[in-house]
């Protein structure tokens, strides 16, 4: 008797969330199968890659490949425009690193001005990432969401401490998409979605960042979190976990020693640029097979590799 594989498509599906507007808008999520299980059912919306641009430009960048890619760019806006031409890029992630009150403390007004300038210059969907300071982030998300009304941006992220503020402004008042962030805590991931939903933010306006880490840096916790979240969403039809997953990869991988230690200090490790690319590729591919619907990355070679990886598995 011939072997007939049993299809494992689920009755439940991940919410399809649209980011951006017009021709360049993208949809993430929508699948009713495990990541890349296209043999069980078609996956309409492939995972996407957003290119991270720091509001500091190339300041602090150790990668020759990244510097070469943006050669000739005179501003962050130039870089954002250039990033759109990166092979495999689908969105731009503007990272307000310098807004941190413990650092440069860039003003909310300056952040808004930059966000507007970038939004005016690019056609791809925009993701806005904060500086990890709870209060400042809430202020930035509020002001940027207001200024970029109609652009359908994703703000990263609403956390347990500021979800009311971020959810009410970005999600409700300004009709943007909200990322709900928890740190490898499946119960909190679900709870945040419940709270945003009780606040009135529609499920189709919410993405999840369930945690991020670089490969080798406690990644197994993230991996098991991704697995458990997808299992609950699909096998247990858990509506509070059916939001697509967005994972910032580059902010983690470019902060570890493998990607930063100069060649003169670690000659046995080989090319610094290659190491950075490999850390991004390893981490992003592991996130994607775990269920991330969008990964945020930096290096053009890594983005191109992951893009091919996605296409070849679809």
């Amino acid at each position, binding site marked *: 008797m011939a072997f007939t594989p049993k299809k494992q498509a689920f009755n439940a599906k991940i919410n399809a969330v649209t980011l951006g507007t017009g021709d360049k808008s993208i949809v993430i999520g929508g699948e009713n199968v495990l990541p890349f299980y296209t043999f069980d059912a078609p996956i309409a919306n492939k995972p996407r890659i957003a290119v991270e641009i720091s509001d500091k430009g190339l300041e602090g960048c150790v990668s020759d490949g990244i510097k070469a890619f943006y050669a000739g760019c005179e501003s962050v806006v130039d870089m954002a425009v250039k990033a759109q031409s990166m092979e495999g890029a689908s969105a731009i992630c503007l990272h307000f690193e310098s807004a941190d009150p413990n650092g440069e403390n860039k003003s909310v007004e300056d952040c808004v001005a930059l966000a507007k300038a970038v939004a005016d210059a690019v056609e791809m969907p925009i993701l806005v990432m904060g500086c990890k300071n709870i209060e400042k982030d809430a202020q930035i998300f509020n002001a940027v969401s207001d200024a970029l009304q109609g652009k359908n941006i994703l703000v990263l992220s609403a956390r347990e401490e500021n979800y009311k503020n971020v959810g009410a402004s970005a999600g409700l008042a300004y009709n943007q998409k909200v990322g709900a962030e928890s740190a490898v805590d*499946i*119960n*909190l991931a*679900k*709870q945040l979605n*419940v*709270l945003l939903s*009780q606040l009135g933010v529609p499920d189709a306006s919410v993405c999840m960042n369930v945690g991020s880490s670089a490969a080798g840096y406690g990644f197994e916790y993230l991996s098991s979190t991704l697995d*458990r979240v997808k299992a*609950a969403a699909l*096998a*247990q*039809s*858990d509506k*509070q*976990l059916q939001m697509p997953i967005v994972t910032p990869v580059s902010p983690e991988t470019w902060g570890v020693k493998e990607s930063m230690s100069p060649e003169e200090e670690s000659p046995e490790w080989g090319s610094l640029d290659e190491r950075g690319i490999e850390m991004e590729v390893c981490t992003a591919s592991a996130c994607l097979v775990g269920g991330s619907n969008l990964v945020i990355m930096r290096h053009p070679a890594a983005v191109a590799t992951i893009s091919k990886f996605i296409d070849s598995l679809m």
Partner: protein
Amino acid sequence: MAKFITIGERISVTAPAIRRAFEERDPEPILTRCEQQLKAGANYIDVNIGPAESDGEERMQWAVKLLQERFDNVPLALDTSNMKAIEAGIQVYNREKGKPIVNSADAGDRFNRIELAANNDAIVIALCSANGIASDNDERMAHCQRMLEEGLMHGMEAEDLWFDPLFLVVKGMQDKQMEVLEAIKMFTDMGLNSTGGLSNNSNGMPKHIRPIFDSCMLAMAMMQGLTSAIVNPNDQRLMETIKTCDIIKNNNLYADSYLEI
């Protein structure tokens, strides 16, 4: 793995207000009770129209359309001894939110309800008794086996037969309670789905005692693997117990607000 399924029992002709509503085709009392049960988290709604020998078919169709049109094709358990009324109800039933449940078959006079369910691609509640309560679990499981085979022979999936051990009243049959729970474990070990009219166990007890008994019995039954029950979803203690047991069994992922969802 799957969450526990609750079948709301409050639309029943045993309640005088509902009996009158069915007789007079008065939608309001029926809609009100349905809404109360859905708000409380019921998954299925049982529609007990009584034997309705003279107008069963028309009565069941009226009720199915009334409830499904108002409540987004809410899935229903069609509860009557009148076979033609069940078939008539299924004819107008919308399956978008779940298959209809035939309530119920047994291994005695209602044995042919299994074939009825098979012919109509419905779920059937299979009561493990023939004419009278099974004397022990050997008899219960013999009924179970016979009904399972009948369903499979008519092309049903085993998962569409929900076996009912028949919950027994504590006041009078206290010595039989563990036996009922053991029967549920036997269904579970066979990989079968199960259900039952939970509140039988607390029949005749003072009103303030019943939720306590129902909750404890339910928790013990869920431990044995019970997959569904016919319950009063407006019993808050009971619903909180079910939600909590679903968490402990890892049928549902914990979140601090789990009682609110």
